[in-house]
């Protein structure tokens, strides 16, 4: 090849933007997929996965129960029992797949929508509802199930996850961490800083981005000009885009990513390409900013129906199994309903509890003043 033709070739091959930029949220990206929307099992050479029929049925049960919990919480918000709810509808596979890829010693740092991951970490679903009901700001012990508190400031937890992973490296164990965030968070400085720290210190952290296409009303195209998973290459670690509605692909890719990280190879970015079927939260109205056709197109990729199609197609589950899942779903719904309705308001002195780990005179004074004030009412019933 002549110098001249090389230069010309270079010029042609260096467009201002990457050539396979997804044209909006409906693009067909480079997805890792192990289960087609029709429920057909396919193989991927880099992400092999062997599953027993029982494992497949367990995943199916997880998906259904997580969806049921989410639907119940949405209903409870509508009934005035919760102040707000952030639904995960449509993202069950991304969460269950990644959540089931974790080992017991691994640690998850969620946003406020990772109800399915919490489920996989065996966190009591009622614990998740406290902050949405307004009785606490989290409240569970993060170290009990290695599932950190929900973080509302977008992307802040990516740094906490990275620091935690740096600590794992110092401890010399082979645990790993997953930081969850969304496509909107990819614009946040904290996420970029987390990528930098994780890369520089080779921290065993998997950045699991659920690209659900919408950051409230803003499409992913408002966040990035390149496919999100490719962000990783600029920071010096691998990025993978996985079909976020395919629980098997999410499981296989996340398991690979966690093993990659725990083996001392540093971080991985997994972009789970998925879709938020509902509103951002119950305060949102997605009909104002997106087309019903788009939502319908994604409905055809539903994570639960595709796994059910696979179970049916392969004859891996019978009617008794589906009936048992349905019964469990009903049981969970009832438990959540009753649990939320019977959740007591905290004592107002909760305000003063745990502000500091050690005594602080200002807090002590204000607690005493408030307590005396409340006691001044007849019977002191405020306390």
């Amino acid at each position, binding site marked *: 090849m002549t110098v001249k033709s090389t230069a010309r070739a270079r010029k042609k091959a260096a467009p201002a933007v990457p050539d396979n930029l997804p044209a909006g949220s409906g693009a067909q990206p480079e997805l890792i997929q192990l289960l087609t929307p029709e429920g057909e099992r396919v193989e991927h050479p880099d992400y092999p996965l062997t599953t027993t029929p029982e494992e497949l049925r367990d995943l199916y049960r997880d998906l259904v129960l997580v969806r049921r919990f989410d639907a119940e919480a949405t209903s409870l918000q509508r009934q005035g029992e919760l102040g707000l709810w952030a639904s995960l509808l449509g993202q069950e596979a991304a969460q269950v797949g990644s959540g089931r890829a974790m080992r017991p010693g691994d640690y998850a740092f969620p946003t406020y929508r990772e109800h399915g991951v919490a489920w996989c970490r065996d966190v009591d679903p009622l614990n998740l509802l406290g902050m949405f009901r307004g009785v*606490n*700001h*989290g*409240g*569970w*012990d*993060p*170290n*009990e199930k290695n599932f*950190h*508190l929900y*973080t509302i*400031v977008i992307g*802040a937890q*990516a*740094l*906490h*996850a*990275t*620091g*935690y*992973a*740096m*600590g*794992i490296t*110092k*401890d010399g164990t082979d645990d790993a961490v997953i930081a969850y965030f969304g496509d909107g968070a990819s614009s946040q*400085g*904290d996420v970029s*800083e*987390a990528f*930098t*720290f994780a890369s*520089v210190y080779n921290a065993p952290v998997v950045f699991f981005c659920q690209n659900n296409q919408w950051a409230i009303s803003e499409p992913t195209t408002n966040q990035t000009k390149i496919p999100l998973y490719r962000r990783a290459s600029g920071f010096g670690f691998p990025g993978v885009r996985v079909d976020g509605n395919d629980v098997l692909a999410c499981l296989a890719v996340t398991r690979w990513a966690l093993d990659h990280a725990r083996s001392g190879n540093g971080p991985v970015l997994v972009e789970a390409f998925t879709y938020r079927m509902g509103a951002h939260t119950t305060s949102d109205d997605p009909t104002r900013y997106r087309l019903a056709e788009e939502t319908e197109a994604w409905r055809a990729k539903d994570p639960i129906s595709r796994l059910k199609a696979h179970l049916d197609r392969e004859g891996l589950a019978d009617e008794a199994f589906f009936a048992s899942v349905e019964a469990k779903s009903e049981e969970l719904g009832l438990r959540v309903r009753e649990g939320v309705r019977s959740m007591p308001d905290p004592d107002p002195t909760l305000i003063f*509890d*745990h*502000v*500091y*780990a*050690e005594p*602080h*005179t*200002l*807090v002590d004074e204000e607690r005493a003043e408030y307590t005396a004030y409340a006691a001044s009412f007849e019977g002191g019933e405020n306390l």
Partner: protein
Amino acid sequence: MMAGQLSIAKALNEALRKSLENDPKTLLMGEDIGKLGGVFRITDGLQKDFGESRVIDTPLAESGIVGTAIGLALRGYRPVVEIQFDGFVYPAFDQIVSQLAKMHARALGHVKLPVTVRIPYAGGIGAVEHHSESHEAYFAHTAGLRVVSPSNAHDAHWMLRQAIASDDPVIFLEPKRRYWDKGEVGDAADLPLHDARIARGGTDATLIAYGPMVKVCLDAAAAAEEDGRSLEVVDLRSLSPVDFAALEASVKRTGRAIVVHEAPVFLGMGAELAARLTERCFYHLEAPVLRVGGFHAPYPPSRVEEAFLPDLDRVLDAVDRSFAY
């Protein structure tokens, strides 16, 4: 141990060394703190002695420094982070006020955040923009943070060790213009971290100061003595919590109070101290609690910073105003 005259900078360095020696979970993190020893050399020699995994040179990202320190604390470590200059802490503001300050309460006490954020702060060294700010009110305003500022070598040493040992997050404000002031460092902390100290006894008025302004107030008290006025100087030491019992006792004795700080007066520490002292000492006060501090303006270019910073004359002028009531 290190008895004798030490600069504040060296006293801090020794405090970090002792903390690293005493607890293998203690880590230092920050920009340029390793080979360089920090731009003020506060961490001088520590990476050489404790290694790169305990004295960590970080990327240039303040939110990242504090955010990853939070993660390390969650894993059981006790990070001490250095923010290179006061004006650079703002990029880490969310991580400090929304994450670090609140996580213990959000977890209903299930997690502890023993993170110390060291910040060389305030002016008087002829620096460029963003190198001379006093932002203590932002942090003291935030529940969940403890905020302290030493004024001498002994306190610098022991308050830093106490801050690192605390299970709460501590904003540790180092008066950078005093880094090279020397003083005796004793072999034990005289006071709990959050107690105020009578830096000079007096009977006619109380000057309340902390960090870099304590020396200014001591100089003012020495000058006032020549005029026949006996000024008490209280070194606040802790800005959250504030030792109001000590302040109240002093002001009830003297009947007059003047709060001196570098930060702008409007909504600063002085506003809070004046309001509370008025509530508590109303019938003992001979004059309103006065404030001396910076103006409601960005920290000025260094050629005019002397006009912004309270000095001996501005303090004495406030004393005169107090006595004029």
